C-alpha cells in the first residue's frame, strides 16, 4: 500500500519536527516550554511510526503510537504535578533557578 506522498517526505517532516522539538528542549529555560518541546518530539516519532505502518501495510505501527499517546498522558500528569510542586516551593519554573537538590 502506498500513501498520498512518498514515505521519504513523511520522514523528512518527522525529522524536521523532531529537530524543532530538540531545539526547544535544549534552548528554552521555561519548564513549560521544555515540556511542550518533548511532547513535540514524541509526536515526531509517532509520525514516523505511522508513515512506516502505511508503507509496510501493517497496523503494528499504529498500535505503538496508541501506547505512546497513553504514556504521554501519564507523563503529562506527573510532569505538571512536579511543576506545581516546584512552583509552590520556588515561585518559578525557570529550570536554571532550580539548582538545589535539597531544600
Amino acid at each position, binding site marked *: *500500500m*502506498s*500513501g*498520498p*506522498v*512518498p*514515505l*521519504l*517526505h*513523511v520522514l523528512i*517532516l518527522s*525529522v*524536521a*519536527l*523532531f*529537530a*524543532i*522539538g*530538540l*531545539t*526547544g528542549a*535544549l*534552548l528554552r529555560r521555561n519548564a*513549560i*516550554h521544555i515540556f*511542550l*518541546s518533548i*511532547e*513535540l518530539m514524541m*509526536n515526531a516519532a*509517532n*509520525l514516523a511510526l*505511522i508513515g*512506516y*505502518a502505511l*508503507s*509496510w*501495510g*501493517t*497496523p*503494528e505501527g*499504529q*498500535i505503538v*503510537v496508541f*501506547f505512546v*499517546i*497513553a*504514556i*504521554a*498522558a*501519564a507523563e*503529562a*500528569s*506527573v510532569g505538571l*504535578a*512536579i*511543576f506545581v*510542586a516546584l512552583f*509552590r516551593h520556588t515561585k518559578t519554573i525557570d529550570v*536554571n533557578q532550580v539548582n538545589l537538590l535539597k531544600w
Partner: protein
Amino acid sequence: MTGSAMVFYAAAVLTVVFAAVMVVHRNPVKSTLALVVSFFGLAICYVLLSAPLIAVLQVIVYAGAILVLFLFVLMLLNLREEPAPPGSSRPIQTVLSGVAIVSFAGLMLGLIRASGDPAAGADPQPLTDIARVSRLLFSDYLLPFEAVSVLLLAALVGAFVLVYSEKRA
C-alpha cells in the same frame, strides 16, 4: 500531484510553522496554543496516512486533555510572559546546541536517504479498518495494553501525592 498530497503538504507546513512558533514564543499560554494547532496539522497528516483512529485519538487526548491540562496549570500558576533575566544569554551553549541539532537532523536525513523506501508489503486489508487495528491491540498486544493501564494508575497516584498539601485538606 493529487489532492490529498496537496492537503498533506499544506498540513505539514502548518505543523512545522506552528511548532516553530511554539518554541520561540515567550508567552507560555500562546506557546501551548501554537502546539495545539501544530497537533491539528499532524492529525490531518494521520488521516491522510490512513490512520483515522490515531488522528482522532490525537485530537481527543492531546488537544482535549493533555494541552488543556497545561493551560489549566498555566492559569492556576498565573504564568504570563517572562522577560529574559538580564545577563543570562549563553552564546557558547546556544551555538553548541545549534551545531548538535543541525548535525542530528543531517545524520537522520542521511540515514533515511541511505535506507531508501522499504518494499511495500502486499496487504489487501486497508489500515483504515478500525476493527483490524483493535483486534490486534486486544490480542497480541494485550499485555502491553494492561501494563499501560497500570502505568496510568501509577501516574494518577503519583500526581496526587506530588500536589497534595496537608494544609488545605
